[in-house]
Structure formats: structure tokens, C-alpha cells
């Protein structure tokens, strides 16, 4: 088991290197130098050269990459081209806000999804299956940014139930600040609910078709112990999808954050794109992708801990 974990850790290294290459390469497949695009056309060549040197854009590409990677590993993502503040400072604050949304959205979405899927599978073909499957299908088909708008429309415009913009002031009491979370979290939870719900349904149905479930009843187990067995068998694939979905929540929050004006990493990325703030953009993507890789690594290890057949 330990061996498996260590080996998986080693396998993550080339992936992370590849990720860094892609992130770095993305910026450089775009024609034109970031500085050229940023500087006004009338700027003198000297100033431009100076700026390039300051940001390291004068060196050969592979050197730029190595330098950037070396610093990034140490947590130094340089300065923002837009406002010359350290990138990491901006990013860490934004990430914290995004994580609050993502974790709550995941918790709500995953638990609803598991519930939907389990009920659908156990009542296969009967009315609860139809209702819960329909909910799950709606969940995966909803454009969440539209759903956000509809929620705002309903809860903030037509009725004055919830605040719809921003995340509230730090000075507000906790209860009031929590209110700002309600709509974004509900919005974010819809897609994971649908996706997880469908997978849980399919996986549990598959397990129900296996011989050992009959054998469990044959040895006299009652309903709940049997469900426990089913849950443990269904856990590995569902965990894997949860890992992926959590990553999508982090990345996909950009749309929801835009609607709710939530100061998270998605908002930051959006701003960086429009300001062509390359260091911020690179850092945001790299950090999110690295987190995603590590999360999937943890999921793999958790899967192996549950299902001994996955360990080798």
C-alpha cells in the first residue's frame, strides 16, 4: 500500500513537468511578446528593452522556462505586469475565496448526487428512479452561469431574500456573511450533483447485478448491511469522479464568480486575461492545475486503500 502511494507520487512528477511546459508554452504560442502588447505603440525601443529585461523576456525561451519554473517551485511567481504587486499575494487571497465556494459546493453537490444515485439504483425502474434520474439529467444539462442569473432573478430581484453580489464585508456578523454564500454554493453544486448522481446510479446498478450481492442476502444479511457492502464497492469510481469534479469546480467557478462578483481565482483569471497580465495568468493556471494533479493523486491512493485489487 505504501509502495503504491510512493510509486504514484513518482508518476505525478512527469505530469507536473508536462503541465508546467503546457502553461509556459501556452503563453508563447501566442504571436507577439507580452510586453509588446502591453506597451503603448509610441513607447521608445529603449524603454521596451528595459521592460523586457526587467521581466526576463530577453533571454532564450528555454532559459525563461527554467527560471520561471525554478522560481515557481519556490512559490515565487514574480510581479504582476499590470500593477507590479507580487502575484502570489493576489492569488492566495483569491484562492481562499474560491476554495470556500468550491468546498461548500462540492459538499452539497456530492451528497445530493450520492443520494439521488443511490435512490435511483435501489428503486430501479420505479417512480423514485424516474424522478431522481430526471433531477440528475437536469443537473448535468444546466448552464450554471444561467442558473446563477435565474437564482439572482428569483431570490434577489423578484424577492429580496438573499444578497446577490460580492461576498459581504468582513465587518458583518457571520450570519449575514453566510447569506452571501447561499446562491453561489447552490449554483456550483448543481453540475456535480448531476454528474455524481448519474455515475452512482450506473455503478450501483452494475454492482447489484453481480453475484456477490445475491450471496450477501444468501448469508442472511439485512438491507442496511448489504447497502454498506454496495457502498464500499461503489466508492472507488465515485471517488475518482469526485476528484475530477472538484477540479472542475475550482476551474469552472470563473463563470459563477463573474455572475456573483465573487472575488475568487476565477475573477482574478478573468481580469488577468483582459489585462493581458501574463504572470498572474500563468500562476493561476499552474497553481490550480498542480492542485488538481495532487488531488487526483490523493484520490488514487484512497481508491487503493478501499479496493485491494487496485494496489499492485
Amino acid at each position, binding site marked *: 500500500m505504501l509502495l503504491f502511494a510512493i510509486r504514484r507520487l513518482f508518476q505525478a512528477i512527469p505530469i507536473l513537468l508536462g503541465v508546467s511546459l503546457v502553461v509556459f508554452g501556452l503563453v508563447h504560442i501566442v504571436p507577439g511578446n507580452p510586453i509588446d502588447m502591453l506597451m503603448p505603440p509610441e513607447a521608445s525601443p529603449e524603454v521596451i528593452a528595459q521592460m523586457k529585461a526587467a521581466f526576463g523576456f530577453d533571454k532564450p525561451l528555454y532559459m525563461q522556462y527554467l527560471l520561471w519554473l525554478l522560481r515557481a517551485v519556490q512559490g515565487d511567481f514574480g510581479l504582476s505586469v499590470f500593477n507590479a504587486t507580487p502575484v502570489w499575494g493576489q492569488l492566495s487571497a483569491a484562492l481562499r475565496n474560491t476554495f470556500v465556494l468550491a468546498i461548500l459546493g462540492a459538499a452539497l453537490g456530492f451528497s445530493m448526487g450520492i443520494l439521488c444515485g443511490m435512490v435511483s439504483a435501489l428503486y430501479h425502474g420505479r417512480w423514485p428512479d424516474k424522478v431522481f434520474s430526471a433531477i440528475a439529467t437536469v443537473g448535468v444539462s444546466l448552464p450554471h452561469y444561467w442558473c446563477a442569473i435565474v437564482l439572482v432573478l428569483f431570490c434577489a430581484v423578484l424577492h429580496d431574500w438573499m444578497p446577490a453580489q460580492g461576498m459581504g464585508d468582513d465587518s458583518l456578523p457571520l450570519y449575514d456573511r453566510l447569506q452571501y454564500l447561499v446562491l453561489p454554493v447552490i449554483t456550483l453544486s448543481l453540475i456535480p450533483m448531476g454528474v455524481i448522481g448519474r455515475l452512482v446510479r450506473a455503478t450501483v446498478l452494475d454492482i447489484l447485478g453481480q*453475484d*456477490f450481492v*445475491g450471496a*450477501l*442476502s444468501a*448469508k*442472511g*444479511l439485512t438491507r442496511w448491511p448489504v447497502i454498506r457492502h454496495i457502498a464500499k464497492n461503489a466508492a472507488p469510481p465515485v471517488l475518482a469522479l469526485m476528484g475530477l469534479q472538484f477540479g472542475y469546480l475550482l476551474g469552472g467557478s470563473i463563470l459563477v464568480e463573474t455572475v456573483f462578483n465573487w472575488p475568487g481565482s476565477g475573477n482574478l483569471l478573468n481580469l488577468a486575461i483582459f489585462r493581458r497580465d501574463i504572470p498572474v495568468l500563468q500562476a493561476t493556471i499552474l497553481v490550480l492545475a498542480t492542485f488538481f494533479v495532487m488531488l487526483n493523486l490523493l484520490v488514487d491512493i484512497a481508491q487503493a486503500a*478501499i479496493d*485491494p485489487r487496485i494496489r499492485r
Partner: protein
Amino acid sequence: MADTASTPVLRVEDLTVRFTRRNTDVAAVNGVDFSLKAGETLTILGESGSGKSVSLKALMGLLPAYAGISGKVWLNGQEILGLPAAALAKLRGGAVSMIFQEPMAALDPVYTIGEQIAETIVQHEGCDNRTAMKRALGLLEQVKIPSAERRLKNFPHEMSGGMRQRAMIALALACKPGVLLADEPTTALDVTVQIQILLLLRQLQEELGMAIVFVTHDVGAAAEISDRIAVMYAGRFVETGTTRQVMRQPMHPYTRGLLSSTVHGGMRGRALETIPGSPPNLAELPPGCAFAPRCRYAADACRRDIPVVTTETGAMARCVRAAELMPA
């Protein structure tokens, strides 16, 4: 059937199973009767689709909800068909338990062997987990699994086929069942392992005195283990009798065909005597004897109904011409 002295532990009367789904109505089991005393082994011998496994599952209450089951089943004098789920769960794994063809598929892959056995004991006897584990160890030793202590912590996929089947038997015997239902337990095993399992079952039966219903398609396995054999075709027992009667003096043409098409030693150079055609479609069973379309002795009477012929020795065959075909 001739059951005289002691009361049977298991009695089945007119067991019928139908699968009705959409437009098909499959008559899987069509009126099966038998009874079984403690320490006795009945083998249900039949080919795939003859309804032998479905009969076992019906006894265990393991069939899906759309299966229509009728008839009467008494276990130790108590009627068990249609019992509420909770009462049924108490019987399953307790008074009656089951072993399966593919132990790999019938064991939960993500729990250790020890956990799975202990779970059954805890469920039925309400003891604590530690006691249950100790019992599980004893059971593994009883089914002669070498280094049982270590095996207790093994997952199913870490064991060989024979070991898994032994573990499955240990699991089934956990609560000392009066009746053991065995669904082709030796089919998936190698020859050298198959005979070990058969001998083990015979020995355990002597020690524990349970009754066994052994389902198989293998004539050899049937000869090794059974006291009585019931030959099943298209959901019916077409012939029953002691192992010796059925193997030596088969009355029903199907039994004879089955025995003559089973290859055994010393048949080289002779063409095999076969049963023509293939088994009937259970959704469209012909009236009368289901074997008639493939039977070389078939007469007009076979298409109407099937008389039961019983000999004075207790053997039974469902065949119009059983009496005249009976070997002298």
C-alpha cells in the same frame, strides 16, 4: 416419493417459477417436488437452462421481484415461501445456506475472507466481532485451508480457486445450517481440485449431518456425491431415483441420452450416441412432454400429458413409455 421414517428437513411441493417480462413468459421451473432428510444428498442433474439453479434460488428467495413463485416449501416443518424479509433473512445463512459456482464472483472483493465470515456470525448470533473472528478461524481450519490464520486476512483475489471455494464453504457452514444448497460448486475448478472439494463436502456432511441439495451438470460429480439424483429437463424432474438406479438403469429417454453422450473411458473409435436438436425454448414449451420433439421414442400420447411412472423401488420417471423402455 417414498419418505418413511424420520421427518424431512426440507420438503418442496409443486415449486413453480415464471419470469414474466414485457412480452415473454418464461416457464423456468414447472412443478418440482422433493423432500430431503438430514444427512442426505440430492443431486439435481441437468443442462444449462433446465431450471436447476433457478430452483435453488427460489428456495433461497434470491430471485428478482418479477419472478412469480408458487408452490410450498417447508424447512424443518415451517413454511418458508412468502415469509417476510426479516424472517427470511434469519433463515438464510442460518438454517439454510448456499455455496455458488464462482466463489470469486460470490465473495465481496473489497472485504477480507475473515471479515465476510465473521459478519455472518455476528448477524445471526449477535456475538462480538472478536469471538466471530475466532470462530471464522476455526471454520477455515475445518475446511482444511492451510495457514488459516494468514488466510483470514486475505482478500478473495489473493487466493487460488480451490482456496476460495473452501472459504465459501466455511462461510456457508458458519452457523451450522441444516440444509446446504450447492449451486455447481465444482464446475469452475480444475479436476484435481474438484475431487478435493467433493471429498471435503462428503466429510463435512458426515461430521455435521446436514442435508445437501447439489446442483450440477456433471454426471461424474453427481456419482461421487449424491444419495439420490433428480434429472431435470425444461423445469421438470423427469426422473428421480437413487444414484445407482439413475446411473445404472435410467428409465427416461433423456437420462439415457445424457448418459450415453457423456464421454467416459473406453469409448474410443465409437461414434457417440447423441440427443438430436437443442433444449426447448422455455417461453414456448410444447404441451405434454417437453422432451418429445427430441425423443426417438416419442409417441402421440407424449404430446398430450405426462404420466408419472413409479417403480416399487421408489424411482420415478415422467414418461409414457418408461415402463416398456425399462431395462430388464
